[in-house]
């Protein structure tokens, strides 16, 4: 378990952690420092509120990127998929990363109306992994043809495709 003492050298991260712990008591305890950046693991049901809190109260006004991950072959018992949210704050620049783990078939609430930059990012993750973002107004494939069968970045998708 991480402690606040781990963040003693970085007051900005400490403030973010304390604010999240206060707003979401008992649910934001799972966090880590990865490559000099704070990564918080967020329960699926809280993600929209956490994003709203980070944007409205803590000034993280930029969603730089969203990343999908398929953990099918991972050995540490993770859920099937992870979605990462990479947030950035300026003028006091801090980056933080949120991770949401979900099972196959679970959907995620869209943050389209909070961060417009999530529009194509959510469409990409839907296209590549088949993760549905509920509430997205235009969730279509973005890379693959409309009639494409399957979601190619899933680990169980054959590299050559289904049709040969």
């Amino acid at each position, binding site marked *: 378990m991480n402690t606040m003492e781990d963040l003693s050298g970085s007051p900005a991260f400490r403030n973010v952690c304390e604010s999240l712990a206060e707003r979401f008591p008992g649910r934001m305890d799972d966090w880590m420092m990865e490559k000099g950046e704070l990564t918080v693991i967020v329960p699926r049901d809280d993600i929209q509120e956490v994003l709203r809190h980070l944007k409205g109260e803590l000034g993280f006004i930029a969603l730089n990127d969203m990343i999908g991950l398929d953990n099918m072959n991972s050995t540490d018992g993770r859920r099937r998929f992870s979605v990462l949210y990479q947030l950035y704050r300026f003028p006091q620049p801090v980056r933080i990363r949120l991770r949401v783990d979900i099972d196959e078939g679970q959907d995620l609430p869209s943050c389209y109306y909070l961060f417009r930059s999530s529009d194509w990012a959510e469409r990409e993750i839907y296209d590549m992994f088949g993760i549905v973002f509920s509430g997205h107004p235009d969730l279509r494939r973005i890379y693959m043809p409309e009639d494409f069968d399957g979601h*190619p970045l899933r680990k169980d998708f054959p590299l050559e*495709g289904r049709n040969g």
Partner: protein
Amino acid sequence: MTDTQAAPSYILTKVDSFITWAQKNSLWPFGSGLACCAMEMIATAASHYDIARFGMELFRASPRQADLFIVSGTVTNKMAPVIRRLWEQMPDPKWVIAMGNCAISGGPFPTYSVLQGVDKIIPVDVYISGCPPGPQALLDGLILLQETIAKGHPTSVMFKDR
């Protein structure tokens, strides 16, 4: 008026030879730059290699004004219907060059997203291998295409028995 009109001149040739001579020496390419092969195609059109020496310098942006389709690069499955349509928009007679390993067979991408050879959707006259083929290879392929055109019999289509 003096009566010193020059004697009329004649050139005797076959109609086939005349037509193919005209066709092969003013190929108007439609360059579809799909990947890195496009860089080599552009270099071929620039002054150092100078494709104008072979009467092909008039790269057209519209397929309706071109008679040579240079498919230079990776054709994805999403792009394939577009390539087919562009080829259909070209007026006859028309020729196709598959430039580079991707256009020939998918090249290094045996994957779900890449068409495994442009000849699955349009007929190809000349294949130029390489990854990417240099301007010399492209010029070599173009000269090969000219030789192929010169051997053609366009009149056999015009005057065939009905």
